[in-house]
């Protein structure tokens, strides 16, 4: 397998853009990435588009509108990890030598209000089981019951990510929020308050992968994608099981193990991490599953300032999904864009000094988890 490099990145800010179609969002990000890579028509041999709610041939519509069709275009759906799955496919094609340059992009325009997901069969909806935030709440409660994670810790995570997000011009929310304000926000599902949950929204991100290093070379050292094993009733695949919760590794743990091995790094080598923070509890669980802190040590990690800018290992310097919002197909590639800037030393006020090894993590319905390691 030969090395795979990031040749160009592009992003459309995450937020709400009622006058902009999803095709236009994707087009914006794709054009920026291609321009940076110095690539035009004929400059890439395949394209993968991560998206969940964009409908039929969504990626084709983006490339058709730019006069860039003709190459194979594959639309990829893997829940919250859709962009990561698209990246995995693209990296495999470049790494294997099948293609020299591949475009990967992700885009989303999430429906407003409580989102209806075809993941839930009608009988589950009727029974009141399609209450997505409630599953996050149960997961957070389990962290609190099984370890010393407190409600205050959940607030601290959100406070940190909102503080980081202030410096991110591509984030939806750019306002620092105190832990007290977070705790005082309306209860959505105990123990989760409104300001402990990310907002589904809109956005796009794009990355050009190449076999040839350019500029400050950022290498895609590993992209690992895994789905869940049976069990783990509160895994992201809930409510598929209703099944006994015998100990099985979570998708994130499996993907992390694969990625660390393929990249030849361990958590101690990481300089900066962007991880899935759908809600405050998810960030703590992600940190544990990625090995950034001991299992059951997530509460302590938060209270010791884990993940803060200036800490040994900053987590979500972009502000995370809590600040950016979550456009499903775009979120994983948004992380890759951010981390590419970090490794190039081009992340402005969000810069983690001297970052050389970065990790991106997404996990969601399916269940799917993607872990990517980038190096410079």
């Amino acid at each position, binding site marked *: 397998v030969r090395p795979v490099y990031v040749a160009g990145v592009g992003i459309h800010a995450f937020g709400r853009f009622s006058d902009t179609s999803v095709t236009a969002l994707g087009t914006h990000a794709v054009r920026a990435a291609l321009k940076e890579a110095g690539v035009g028509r004929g400059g890439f041999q395949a394209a993968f588009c991560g998206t969940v709610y964009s409908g039929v041939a969504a990626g084709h519509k983006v490339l058709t509108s730019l006069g860039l069709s003709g190459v194979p275009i594959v639309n990829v759906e893997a829940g919250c990890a859709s962009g990561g799955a698209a990246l995995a496919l693209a990296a495999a094609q470049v790494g294997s030598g099948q293609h020299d340059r591949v475009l990967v992009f992700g885009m989303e325009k999430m429906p407003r209000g409580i989102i209806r997901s075809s993941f839930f069969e009608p009988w589950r909806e009727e029974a009141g089981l399609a209450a997505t935030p409630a599953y996050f709440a149960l997961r957070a409660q389990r962290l609190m019951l099984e370890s010393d994670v407190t409600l205050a810790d959940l607030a601290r995570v959100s406070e940190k990510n909102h503080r980081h997000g202030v410096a991110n011009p591509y984030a939806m929310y750019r306002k620092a929020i105190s832990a007290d304000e977070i705790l005082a926000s309306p209860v*959505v599902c105990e123990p989760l308050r409104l300001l402990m949950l990310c907002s589904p929204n809109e956005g796009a991100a794009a990355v050009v992968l190449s076999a040839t290093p350019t500029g400050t070379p950022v290498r895609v050292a590993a992209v690992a994608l895994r789905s869940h094993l049976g069990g783990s009733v509160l895994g992201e695949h809930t409510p598929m099981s209703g*099944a006994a919760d015998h100990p099985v590794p979570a998708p994130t743990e499996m993907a992390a193990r694969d990625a660390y091995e393929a990249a030849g790094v361990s958590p101690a080598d990481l300089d900066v991490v962007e991880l899935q923070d759908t809600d405050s509890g998810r960030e703590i669980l992600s940190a544990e599953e990625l090995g950034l802190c001991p299992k059951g040590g997530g509460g302590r990690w938060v209270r010791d300032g884990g993940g803060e800018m200036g800490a040994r290992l900053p987590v979500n310097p972009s502000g995370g999904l809590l600040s950016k919002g979550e456009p499903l197909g775009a979120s994983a590639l948004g992380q890759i864009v951010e981390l590419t800037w970090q490794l190039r030393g081009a992340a402005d006020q969000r810069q983690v000094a001297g970052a050389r090894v970065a990790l991106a993590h997404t996990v969601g319905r399916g269940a799917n988890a993607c872990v990517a390691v980038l190096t410079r």
Partner: protein
Amino acid sequence: LFVADPEAPRLIGGSCQVCGKSHFPRGPVCPYCGADACVEARFGPDGRLALFTVVTSRPPGYRGPVPYGFGVVELPGGLLVVSRLAESRFDCLRPGLAVRLAIEPLFTDEEERPVLAWVFRPEAS
């Protein structure tokens, strides 16, 4: 999904003859080991509340009352079931609480027919 006998309500799941694990609702093969050797198994009515929250806004496709309790109930044998709870006051719920299965009308459909659903109710309330 369930047996709607008021005297003996049960959830209908499956039990694997190969790995011994149970699942709900019943599927064609064991979701753990993939064995094509599952038999029908009935679960309930008594269980213990493992995890719980309260849903405060109406999720898609749900036509019952809001707010409502929501949680994970552990049934004898270790089966964990995600379920609506009959108690919607968070402070009245706690880990380990004894709960009992009930099959009850949840809402009335377009043809004025009651639609039944399962729910777990705390023993004391």
